[in-house]
């Protein structure tokens, strides 16, 4: 039994099925494209900064920018648990590029106080949960957050992103099961980009599709072309409506591809062919979405180029500023372990401050 995959735009960005075209205001669509462009630029500049030794680490997003569609389909009040390639959602919701750049530099203005690998940031104000590094842990947490929303009688849903690798994690299993049995308003979005570092999807599981798991938890499932902005939007929107109607969770399997190395620490030459990558680059989500907007005459190619240029310059400015800022001070080491610092930890803090004052 072959699973049906929702696709609305073809690989060039033409409407495959006009009946399914969602009705989204022009300005919103353009703003979405701009966000995708920002995400792409952050990728290009981020890896350069890492290569230059200016930031410690880089996680790529290139090729998975269609996730921004989820930000349109959701309300800003809905909670989102990202994996680590979904910062487009925070940006679309208004998390500032400046904050993000400061975070990458782990400088004194970094909200995460220089504690996290660059890219692992969250924002309570934007209902964008601070991600872990251990894979999969957010899936069950998202189910719990959705349950809380139900108890609090709020008209909200929780959406959670994770990879194909994460589908093997324990928290995938408990997350879908707890979400299902409590009928909580949660949307599980698997970004099946075919690779978990060097492990290909066919070695991650013998299942043909991740979406085949939905039935085993008594929840709804749908597979989409994950590089198709409109399909992404539509699936999330429908899942949200179902959730708000009290019909429980949906598992969305987004078929996409990691065209980049896993992170700045990875070299895919050891384990995969360039051909596969090339093939997928044809399905680039930005290209497709941009062409769709050009086809609708919402923008021109020229507009797009300007958009890229403008954002590139903006980012360069922010980077220049961020680079000069100092790192967080020594005493921050002991903040936020608990709300209030207990006596034994205060002693440790004083010991350390004393030592480095002397030294």
């Amino acid at each position, binding site marked *: 039994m072959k699973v049906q995959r929702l696709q609305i735009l073809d690989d060039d960005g033409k409407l495959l099925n006009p009946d399914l075209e969602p009705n989204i205001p022009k300005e919103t669509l353009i703003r979405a494209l701009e966000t995708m462009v920002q995400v792409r630029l952050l990728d290009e500049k981020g890896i350069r900064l890492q290569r230059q030794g200016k930031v410690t680490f880089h996680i790529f997003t290139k090729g998975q920018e269609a996730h921004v569609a989820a930000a349109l389909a959701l309300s800003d009040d809905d909670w989102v648990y990202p994996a680590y390639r979904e910062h487009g959602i925070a940006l679309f919701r208004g998390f500032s590029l400046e904050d993000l750049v400061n975070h990458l530099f782990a400088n004194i203005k970094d909200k995460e106080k220089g504690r996290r690998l660059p890219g692992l940031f969250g924002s309570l104000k934007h209902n964008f949960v601070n991600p872990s590094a251990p894979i999969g*842990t957010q899936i069950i947490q998202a189910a719990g957050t959705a349950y809380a*929303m139900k108890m609090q009688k709020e008209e909200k849903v929780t959406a959670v992103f994770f990879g194909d690798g994460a589908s093997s994690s324990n928290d995938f299993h408990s997350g879908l099961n707890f979400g299902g049995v409590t009928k909580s308003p949660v949307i599980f979005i698997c970004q099946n980009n075919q690779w978990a570092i060097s492990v290909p999807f066919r070695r991650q599981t013998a299942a043909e599709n991740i979406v085949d798991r939905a039935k085993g938890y008594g929840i709804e499932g749908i597979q989409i072309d994950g590089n198709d902005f409109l399909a992404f939007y539509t699936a999330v929107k429908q899942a949200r409506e179902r959730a708000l109607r009290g019909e429980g969770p949906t598992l969305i399997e987004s078929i996409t591809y990691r065209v980049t190395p896993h992170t700045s620490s990875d070299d895919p030459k050891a384990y995969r062919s360039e051909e596969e990558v090339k093939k997928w680059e044809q399905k680039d989500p930005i290209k497709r979405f941009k062409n769709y907007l050009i086809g609708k005459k919402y923008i021109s190619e020229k507009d797009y180029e300007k958009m890229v240029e403008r954002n590139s310059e903006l980012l360069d400015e922010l980077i220049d500023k961020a680079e000069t800022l100092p790192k967080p001070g020594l005493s921050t080491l002991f903040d936020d372990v608990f709300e209030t610092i207990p006596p034994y930890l205060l002693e440790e803090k004083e010991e350390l401050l004393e030592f480095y004052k002397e030294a």
Partner: protein
Amino acid sequence: MVETNMVGAINMALREEMERDESVVVLGEDVGKDGGVFKVTAGLIDKFGPERILDTPLNESGIIGFAVGMALKGMRPVAEIQFIDFIWPAADQIISEAAKFRYRSGGEFTVPMVIRSPYGGGVKGAHYHSQSPESIFAHTAGIKIAVPSNPYEAKGLLLSAIRDPDPVLFMEPKRIYRAFTQEVPEGEYTIPLGEADVVREGSDVTLVSYGSMLHVTLDAALMAEEQHGISCEVINLRSIVPLDIETIGRSVTKTGRFISVSEAPRTAGFSAELSALVAERWIEYMESPIFRVTGYDTPFPMILESQYLPTPERVLAKIVESYNY
């Protein structure tokens, strides 16, 4: 005032706190109609319904991860792990998630939740219904640990734990769940986390313990007094993190002798931490070795559990050894 045992006191605390604060939710395996395998949550589902007293699927990382997600969204979950021996599937959600959320998010995302769980030996529960893993969680920055030793403390500490803005592991000494009753006030009172209690004053030897081992320790202190005329000061920690180091220091600088009693395996148990603290701060006061009486470095046995566990006699022997050193 109600005369009740520890099970009753915890039940009372949960009931009152759930009445006071809508955001408190109880979840775990069999906590609903069954009232928990030890009946600690008995009757709560009738009062608060199956949404707030949530019977979960059989998955401990699920229970804790779900509770973390609820706590992030403003609830105050009280998650039960049926026996603390079954907490390991949840280790990742506790160690990597609950304990680190505040820190990793620069203080923005917080996880005010309680993990309640019966622990400890003495009920012929064998390997998997007997263990005391407090040192493992004590080594995990970002989580507090409370261990009551009687019904009064159980209620007062649990209320503090539920109201705490950070995750708290609340370890319930199941061996004394129903061992004795005590007057417990109805309504609100709290015992702060981080304050030890000197339950017996003495001048010769300092004994430190918590949970069900406190009673073994107290029995030993009594025997030491009666049989050997040795005066023991007994400190009940009540919370392990934060630890009340000051109270320990005050006592040990007075007595010059120190023994801690805990039932977990010896190596890297919490008694090791207590010994290390005394040895790095007050060694010049010490008139004898810094001792610990503990379980042994074996899995928890069944038939031989009374030999495995510290007994008043074993503690007494160490008291005498320390005193006569």
